[in-house]
C-alpha cells in the first residue's frame, strides 16, 4: 500500500493527461484501417475519421457534401454525376482525384477484393471518370439509398497506394500506416493499446479543433466507465445498466441521441405457429413496451410504430398510432386463430398442443437479456410459454438464425440512415431471417428503393408502415437511443450517434 502511494506521488497525479488537447475515445479491439474490409465497431469508428466519403450525414441524417461538392441524378435515376472537391490531398500529399473514386467503387463491387460492402452497392454497374474532378456512378436500376450509403461506410481509398493487389494483402496500410483524406492522420499505433491520430494540417475543411485524437483499446465496459470518470476517456457509449455509475459523477454528463436501430422479437414465419399475421399481431399486443422502455432502458428509448425508427425523421410515421398494449385483444385474436385457454390459463390449439416456443437471445448483453425476460413474463400472462435460451451471438446467427432453425429470437438491426428495408423484409431476400412475406410489402419495398423523389418516397414508406400494422414482420420492441457519457472537457459534438458524429471529427473541441 505504501509502495502504491509512493510511486503514485512521484508520478505527480494524472493531471498531465488532462491538460493536453487530445480527444480520447474507447474502442474494443485493434482496428483495421480500411473501411471496405472491417465490419467491427472499432474499425468503423476510426475509419470514419481517416477516410471521408463523397458525402456525410448532417444532424438530420441527410447526405451533405464532403469529398463531393455537388451531384446530379439523371432523370431515369440510373446515373449519379459527382463534382469532386478540388485541391484535396491524401495524407501523403498526393492529390485526390476521380481515379480514386473509381478505384474505391470498383473495389467495393469486386467479388475478389474482400470487400464487405458489396451487397450494399449491388446496384452499381460501373464508375466512369469524366475528368479528373468529375465522376459518374452508373446503376442497373434506380437505387435511392445510394447517397446515404456513400456517406455511411464507403470511405474513399487511395488508388496510388492500393492499386494492383488484394486489399487484404496491404498489411502495412491496413494495420499501421493508412493514408486517407480525413481531418486526422495516423501518428502511431500500439497494438492492443491505442491508435493515436494527429491533426492533418492540409485538411480541406475547417481546421480540426483538437491536436490529436486517441482511440484507446478498452474492451471492458466497467473499465471504460472507470477511465471516463478518471478523466482518461472523453466519451463512452453505455448501456442503460451503466447509467447508475455515471449519473451524478463529477465531470460527466449524459447525452442521448436517437439511432437508426430497431430492436425486435423476430418470429420464424416459416413455422406454422407464426405464419398467421393475426398471431404475430396478437403477440405484439401482449407485450408491455412502455414498461420495458421505462424499466430496462430507463427511458432511453422510443415506443415503436413499425420497423422504421424515429431517427429517420423524414420517413418514420410519427402520426401513426404506437403498437398498443392490449392483452385482451391479444387473447381474442389468438382465440380467433384457434388458440384457446385451458383450465390452467395456458393456450392450446385444437389438438391440445400448447403454445410454447423457444426465444433465443445472445448472451452477455443485459439490455437484451432483461428485455427477453420481460417479453417472456408478458406472454406468460396471456398463456403463451416462451423458453429463453441464451447463446453466443456467433452461434445464434450461424447455427440457428441463418439456417432458419429457430422459433423466435430477440435481436436488432442497425441500418444506414435510409428507410430501405428491402433486404430484411422483402420475400426471400438474404437477410430476411424471419421469412416474412407479404406481397403488398414486397412491392412497396421494391418501389421505395427505386424512387428518388423524396416526397413520393415518404408516401411509399408510410404505406409500408400501414401494412406493418396489420401484418407485422417482427414484434418491434423499441427504438433505442444511444446513451453517451461525456466528460465535461469535450465540447462541440454534433448531436449524432458516435459513428456519424465521427464523420464531423474536425468540429470536436477539448478544454475548459
Amino acid at each position, binding site marked *: 500500500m505504501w*509502495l*502504491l*502511494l509512493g*510511486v*503514485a*506521488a*512521484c*508520478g505527480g*497525479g494524472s*493531471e*498531465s*493527461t488532462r491538460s*493536453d488537447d*487530445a480527444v*480520447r475515445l474507447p474502442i474494443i*479491439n485493434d482496428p*483495421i484501417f480500411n473501411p471496405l474490409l472491417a*465490419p467491427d465497431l472499432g474499425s468503423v469508428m476510426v475509419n470514419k475519421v481517416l477516410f471521408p466519403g463523397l458525402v456525410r450525414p448532417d444532424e438530420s441524417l441527410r447526405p451533405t457534401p464532403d469529398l463531393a461538392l455537388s451531384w446530379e441524378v439523371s432523370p431515369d435515376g440510373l446515373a449519379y454525376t459527382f463534382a469532386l472537391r478540388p485541391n484535396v490531398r491524401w495524407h501523403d500529399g498526393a492529390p485526390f482525384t476521380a481515379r480514386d473514386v473509381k478505384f474505391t467503387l470498383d473495389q467495393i463491387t469486386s*467479388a*475478389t477484393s*474482400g470487400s*464487405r460492402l*458489396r*451487397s450494399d452497392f449491388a446496384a452499381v454497374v460501373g464508375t466512369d471518370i469524366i475528368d479528373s474532378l468529375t465522376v459518374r456512378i452508373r446503376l442497373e436500376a434506380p437505387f435511392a439509398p445510394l447517397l446515404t450509403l456513400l456517406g455511411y461506410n464507403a470511405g474513399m481509398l487511395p488508388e496510388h497506394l492500393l492499386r494492383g493487389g488484394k486489399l487484404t494483402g496491404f*498489411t502495412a496500410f*491496413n*494495420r499501421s500506416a493508412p493514408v486517407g483524406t480525413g481531418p486526422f492522420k495516423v501518428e502511431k499505433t*500500439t*497494438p*492492443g*493499446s*491505442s491508435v*493515436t491520430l494527429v491533426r492533418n494540417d492540409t485538411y480541406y475543411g475547417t481546421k480540426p479543433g483538437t491536436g*490529436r485524437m*486517441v482511440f*484507446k*483499446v*478498452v*474492451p*471492458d465496459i*466497467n*473499465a471504460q466507465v*472507470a*477511465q471516463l470518470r*478518471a*478523466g*482518461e476517456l472523453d466519451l463512452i457509449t453505455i448501456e442503460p445498466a451503466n447509467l447508475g455509475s455515471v449519473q451524478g459523477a463529477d465531470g460527466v454528463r449524459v447525452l442521448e441521441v436517437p439511432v437508426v436501430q430497431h430492436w425486435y422479437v423476430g418470429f420464424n414465419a416459416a413455422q406454422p405457429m407464426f405464419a398467421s399475421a393475426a398471431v404475430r399481431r396478437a403477440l405484439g399486443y401482449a407485450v408491455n413496451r412502455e414498461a420495458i422502455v421505462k424499466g430496462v432502458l430507463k427511458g432511453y428509448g422510443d415506443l415503436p410504430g413499425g420497423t422504421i425508427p424515429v431517427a429517420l425523421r423524414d420517413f418514420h410515421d410519427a402520426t401513426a398510432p404506437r403498437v398498443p398494449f392490449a392483452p385482451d385483444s391479444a387473447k381474442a385474436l389468438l382465440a380467433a386463430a384457434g388458440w384457446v385457454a385451458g383450465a390452467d390459463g395456458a393456450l392450446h390449439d385444437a389438438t391440445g398442443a400448447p403454445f410454447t416456443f423457444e426465444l433465443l437471445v445472445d448472451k452477455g448483453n443485459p439490455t437484451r437479456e432483461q428485455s427477453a425476460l420481460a417479453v417472456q413474463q408478458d406472454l406468460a400472462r396471456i398463456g403463451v410459454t416462451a423458453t429463453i435460451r441464451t447463446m453466443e*451471438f*456467433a*452461434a*445464434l*446467427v*450461424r*447455427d440457428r*438464425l*441463418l439456417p432458419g432453425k429457430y422459433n423466435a429470437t430477440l435481436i436488432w438491426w442497425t441500418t444506414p440512415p435510409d428507410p430501405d428495408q428491402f*433486404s430484411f423484409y422483402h420475400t426471400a431476400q*438474404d*437477410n430476411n*431471417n424471419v421469412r416474412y412475406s407479404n406481397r403488398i410489402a414486397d412491392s412497396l419495398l421494391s418501389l421505395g428503393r427505386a424512387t428518388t423523389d423524396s416526397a413520393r418516397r415518404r408516401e411509399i414508406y408510410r404505406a409500408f408502415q400501414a401494412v406493418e400494422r396489420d401484418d407485422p414482420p417482427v414484434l418491434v420492441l423499441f427504438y433505442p437511443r444511444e446513451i453517451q457519457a461525456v466528460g465535461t472537457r469535450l465540447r462541440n459534438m454534433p448531436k449524432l450517434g458516435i459513428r456519424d458524429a465521427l464523420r464531423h471529427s474536425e468540429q470536436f473541441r477539448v478544454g475548459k
Partner: protein
Amino acid sequence: MLAFLLRRLGHGVLVLLLASTVTFAIMLAAPGGPSVLADPKLSTIERAEIETRLGLDQPPVVQYTRWLGHAVRGDFGASFLYQTPSLDSIASRLPQTLLLAGAALVITLVVGIPLGMLAAARRGGTLDRLVAAASGVALAVPVFWSGLMLVFVFAVWLRLLPAGGAMTEGGDATLADRLRHLLLPAVVLASAGCAEVFRYTRSAALTTLALPFMQVARARGLSAPRLLWRHALRHVLTSVITVIGLQLPRLVGGAAITETVFSWPGMGRLGVEAALGRDYPLVMAVTLVVSAGVVVASILADVVQMMIDPRVRVA
C-alpha cells in the same frame, strides 16, 4: 546434461503437437464458427466467398494438415480478425506480457520471500499473524473484483494512478509514466502468487530452522539475523524455486483477467479475444506460443535447480 536437454526438447515437441491437434479439433467441433462470418447482414454469396478465402470450406483434416504444413515452416497464417500474420499480433503483445509478468514476479519474490522468512523467525508474532491473515485474503478474493476496486480507489477517487493502459496514450511515455501504469496491474497479478510464496517460504523456513545444523549453528552463538539470512535463506530458496516455477504459467497465460480489467495489451487478453472471436489461426498461434514458452521455462527451471542444488540429478 546434453542428453537430458535433448530428451526434454523432444518431449516438448510432442506436447506441442498434441496440444495443437486437440485445440484444432475442439475448435472445429464447436458451434458457431468464426465471428467474422456471424454478421447477419452478410449475403449468402459474401459468406461463401469469405469461407473460400479462409479455407473453411475444406474438410477438417485437410484444414489441419494444411495448417500444420505451414506451421512447421513458421507460418501460422493470418488472423481472421486482424487480417495480419498471427505471429505479428503475438510479437506486438509479447513485450507487454513479459513486462507485466516480470514485474509481478519481482513483487512476488521481493515481498513474498522476506515476509515468509521474517514470519518464520518470529513465529506467532504480530507480523506473522498479520501477513498470514493478509495472504489468506489475497488467496480468497477474485482478482477482477480487487482489480476494479483498486481502480476506483486509486484512479477515480484519489486520482493518484491511471485507471488503465500501459502508458498515457498520445502523451509522453516516460519511464515514470510507464511505472505508474504498471503498478496496479502488477500488484493485482502478483497478489495470489505472493501469498503462496509467502506461505511456502514460511513453512520451508520453519522446517529449516528446526534442522540439526541450524540448532548447532545457534548453539555456537551465531546471531539470529545472520542465521536467518545467511544460512537458512539459501536452504529455503532451493525448495521455493519449484513453487516459483509453478507460478510462471499463471503469470504468462493466466493474466487475461487482470489484463482485461486494466486494459493491458498482453497475450492473455489476445488469447481470450481470439477464442471468443473464433479466430482459428490466432487461437492456434497463441496456444502454441504460450505452451512453447512454458515448456522452455520449465526446462530452464530444472536447469537452474540443478545448478543451485547439486543433489538434484536427472534420472
